[in-house]
């Protein structure tokens, strides 16, 4: 990931409304529309789940320039996903819902460059989750 990609990721998150969980709630609503089979995997109450997701997003943005910690955390999360029964194909609607959340919340302020940055980051992150899951299953 080059410095431009990191900058676009940071800028897009900085444009989300501060302290407002509405975009994340919309993300989950969209995810469950796209992949209804994913809903039973979320056992936590949804407001708490939205807060966890929002905190994780902030943590990721803070750690983009600390790849070692970021990779470790993503792999650990991937290992936990093994227990939830997540399959590789299920990462696709999550990525779609994530991009959709930014587009819906930011409108034209979510630029094509920002979308490209999120596509690249999500490809990387989902691969690390998958790697963590594989290592846990081995």
């Amino acid at each position, binding site marked *: 990931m080059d410095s431009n990609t990191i900058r676009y990721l940071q800028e897009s998150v900085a444009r989300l409304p501060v302290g407002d969980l509405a975009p994340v709630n919309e993300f989950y609503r969209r995810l469950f529309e796209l992949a209804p089979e994913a809903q039973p995997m979320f056992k936590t109450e949804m407001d708490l789940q939205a807060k966890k997701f929002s905190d994780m997003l902030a943590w990721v943005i803070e750690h983009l320039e600390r790849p070692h910690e970021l990779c470790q955390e993503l792999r650990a999360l991937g290992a936990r996903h093994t227990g939830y029964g997540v399959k590789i194909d299920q990462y*696709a609607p999550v990525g*779609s819902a994530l991009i959709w959340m930014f587009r819906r919340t930011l409108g034209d302020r979510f630029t094509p460059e920002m979308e490209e940055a999120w596509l690249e980051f999500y490809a990387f992150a989902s691969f690390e989750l998958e790697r963590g899951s594989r290592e846990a299953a081995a």
Partner: protein
Amino acid sequence: MSVNTAIVNQHLDEALSSPLFRKADRQARFLRYVVDAALQSPETTIKEFDIAVAVYDRRADYDPRTDPIVRVEAARLRARLREYYELTPPESVRIDIPKGQYVPRFVPVGHGHAPAVSDLSILVPPFRSLSPDPDDQNFCDGVTEEVVHKLAQDHRIRVITQSAAAWLEQREKPKPRYVLEASIRRVGAEIRLTLHLMELTGGGSTRLSNIYQATTNNIFATQERLAEEIRRDLSAALHTDNAGSECIH
């Protein structure tokens, strides 16, 4: 050059039976769909909509603006292919899906062919200013950015910036084959940029060593002109100017 369908199909079967693809059912279907379409009709265009319907079971009212699942999966598929080729270097052909399109390219590899993309990996650390003026380092950073931008337009070259190098380190990827280093000296409005392209494998030989001169009269235009000259010289040194003719569709 006409594509050898049997070789591509055999390579595709091998890739799809590898552990990286075995459990990634949709991405395997995505790859097979675009490869089949390209083999059947070399001039084909493949739309996001076509893949959504054929691979992701979307209906005829599918709207890619509200459901970018194909773009998400294309990025993930490119990453999976990169990983696959790093674990299993291809012997006859490799499948690339260039950014911004879904029609794959079948690139021959092996003796007498253009080098695989991963063979043309170049680490580009920030160019250094040898003067104490902090503005000169800003100028250097601008030239570095322009060079990275121009090299990245060539899909055959894998450009690795300093921050990307840290990422690759974590992911235990092969080291880059080349490193591009440059320093800049300034006297008044005159600038002299000294550049070295070194091969990190096979004894660390210097592949290119050049000096470029410019003035600081129009900073952006100067940065762009220097970057373009560097790109052109690198392409010549790495013999990539004509390598595109080796690609087959």
